[in-house]
């Protein structure tokens, strides 16, 4: 066999392997996206077509009537609530989480490993199991039906994972940079703010997105804590559309579409950092 033919054989083999991989990727994507595609299609159909048989993937008479209904019933109000809670949760989690993670990564103090272990162990407690006692506590301090209270709860739930992610990221930074900063005249906190945090962008973004998606999507905690209409978050409100005019799929799917758009946009904007943040510190000194 001449070298030329060998190279050609390799090329064609590589091409077919790539095509095979692409086919599998498409299959997985289709599987994952099917509910969303169905939801999008349903949200654009007139009410009478929703349950038509055979189902149409592309609506024959697309309409925005369900979206118009959402606006008339004040969905923007719930979006604002959700956005407030989410942003507040992200800020609280990142501020508290980075301080805690830095202390665990760089300071030596009695009980550090116990604290680290406890933090990790907290992640394994299933959320619903603490929901009722948490509700009683929150009710006692009058923090139910309160956006700040909900954000505080979300922060508490998400802190272990944030601390864990940032701990890994901070530990991977060369310690000499921090030593140099301290010798150059920085205190610990200044070192964190001027050296560690600017170099931890991908880690902070990964942790922030994690918290953001949780806070934006959470239904269980919100439905327990928030009963009055004016503080409901979007997922709880969507649940409300299920029974708005009987079993009304149109408004429900339209609301669901509205709720996933911001998350998708944020992920698309930050996906590059998100990946490198999850795979751990790539910063070289």
């Amino acid at each position, binding site marked *: 066999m001449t070298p030329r033919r060998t190279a050609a054989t390799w090329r064609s083999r590589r091409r077919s392997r790539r095509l095979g991989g692409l086919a599998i990727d498409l299959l997985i994507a289709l599987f994952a996206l099917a509910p969303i595609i169905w939801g999008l299609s349903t949200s654009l159909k007139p009410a009478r077509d929703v349950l038509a048989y055979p189902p149409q993937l592309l609506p024959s008479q697309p309409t925005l009537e369900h979206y118009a209904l959402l606006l008339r019933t004040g969905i923007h109000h719930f979006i604002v609530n959700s956005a407030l809670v989410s942003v507040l949760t992200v800020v609280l989690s990142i501020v508290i989480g980075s301080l805690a993670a830095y202390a665990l990564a760089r300071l030596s103090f009695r009980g550090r490993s116990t604290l680290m272990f406890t933090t990790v162990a907290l992640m394994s407690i299933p959320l619903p199991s603490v929901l009722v006692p948490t509700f009683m506590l929150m009710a006692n301090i009058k923090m139910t039906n309160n956006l700040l209270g909900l954000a505080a709860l979300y922060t508490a739930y998400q802190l272990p994972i944030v601390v864990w992610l940032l701990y890994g990221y901070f530990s991977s930074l*060369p310690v*000499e*940079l921090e*030593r*140099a*900063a*301290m*010798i*150059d*005249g*920085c*205190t610990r906190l*200044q070192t964190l703010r*001027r*050296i560690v945090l*600017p*170099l931890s962008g991908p880690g902070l973004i990964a942790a922030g997105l994690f918290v953001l998606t949780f806070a934006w999507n959470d239904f269980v905690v919100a439905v327990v804590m928030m009963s009055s209409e004016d503080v409901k978050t979007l997922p709880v409100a969507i649940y409300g559309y299920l029974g708005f005019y009987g079993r009304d799929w149109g408004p429900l799917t339209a609301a669901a579409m509205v709720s996933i758009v911001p998350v998708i946009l944020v992920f698309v904007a930050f996906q590059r950092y998100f990946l490198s943040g999850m795979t751990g510190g790539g*910063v*070289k*000194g």
Partner: protein
Amino acid sequence: MANVSFSGVSKVYGDAIALAELDLSIAQGEFVALLGPSGSGKTTTLNLLAGLIDADEGEIRIGDRVVNDVTPDKRDIAMVFQNYALYPHMTVFENLEFPLKARDRNVATAVVENRVGTVAETLGLGELLHRYPRELSGGQQQRVALGRAMIRDPKVFLLDEPLSNLDARLRIRMRRDIKALHKAIGSTIIYVTHDQAEAMTLADRIAVFAGGRLQQFGSPAEIYGRPANKFVAGFVGEREPAMLSGSLSVEGASLRFAGPDARFDMPLASARQLAHLGGRAVELCVRPEAVSVSNSGAAIPAVITDVEIDGPGLFAYARVADGAELSFHLGANQSLRVGDALGLGLQGGRLTAFDPQTQLALARW
């Protein structure tokens, strides 16, 4: 006046003694090298002085002040790290101004620009001020690290193996630059290295460390010529010396060395001084420059086992009758081959005998 002093300073990690009862006093403006293999305590000493780790015992002073409980930012020191530790998210300019701005947030822009300009000019960094560290070569990064240390006028400069990441040529050039820098600024410099040649060429005084203990503190000439113990003799010097165990005895006009793998007579320069060593077990350190080719009757018969090109001349290894191996330099105009038989002579003035138990120097002649 001592500018930096350690008295009885110890540092322990678990069961491992990183530094044991260090006493060391460094004068104002002195260039001191801390020399030793890895794990010898030299870097621990530097980190203790920088305040990056805390001493378990003893007292550390900078100037008149005890600094044991002073945080690094308040010690008025500057440090250059082995991997330079340049802030990757800042330009060269921002790296250089960082120590000024970190200490005084309201420092005048004109002052900063003036100071950065001066340092950049001294180190030839003018063209690079707006680049990021990742866009610089190793030698340039090294210069920026030095510049960042120089930007303030600190009491003490600490340099932690600053040249070990550079290639051999550049290392020798930077060595001269650092020496010139010391001359120009006149500050106290403490320089950690495992490279004895670096310590020899740069330092006013060298502190040799091993196993967490200070072995000897003295000028390069003292360290080389009058090693305090066997470790120092073996560690300092371009080539490893031969260490021969045996016993000494005075035989008429010569000193006889007899051991399991070598026996020979040496001319006895001052018998009285060495009389107390008669019959004593010793370890004899024979540096290459103490060995030469000799045709005299007292020459030690040997066979060449290896020859290396060493600059303009040669460097040869020879095995003596009882098995020990000695090495020596040869001039450019001599030629030797493996297997050649010849006689070797030992020159006085360059031999040191050590006590095999305590490892301490007993006599040199």
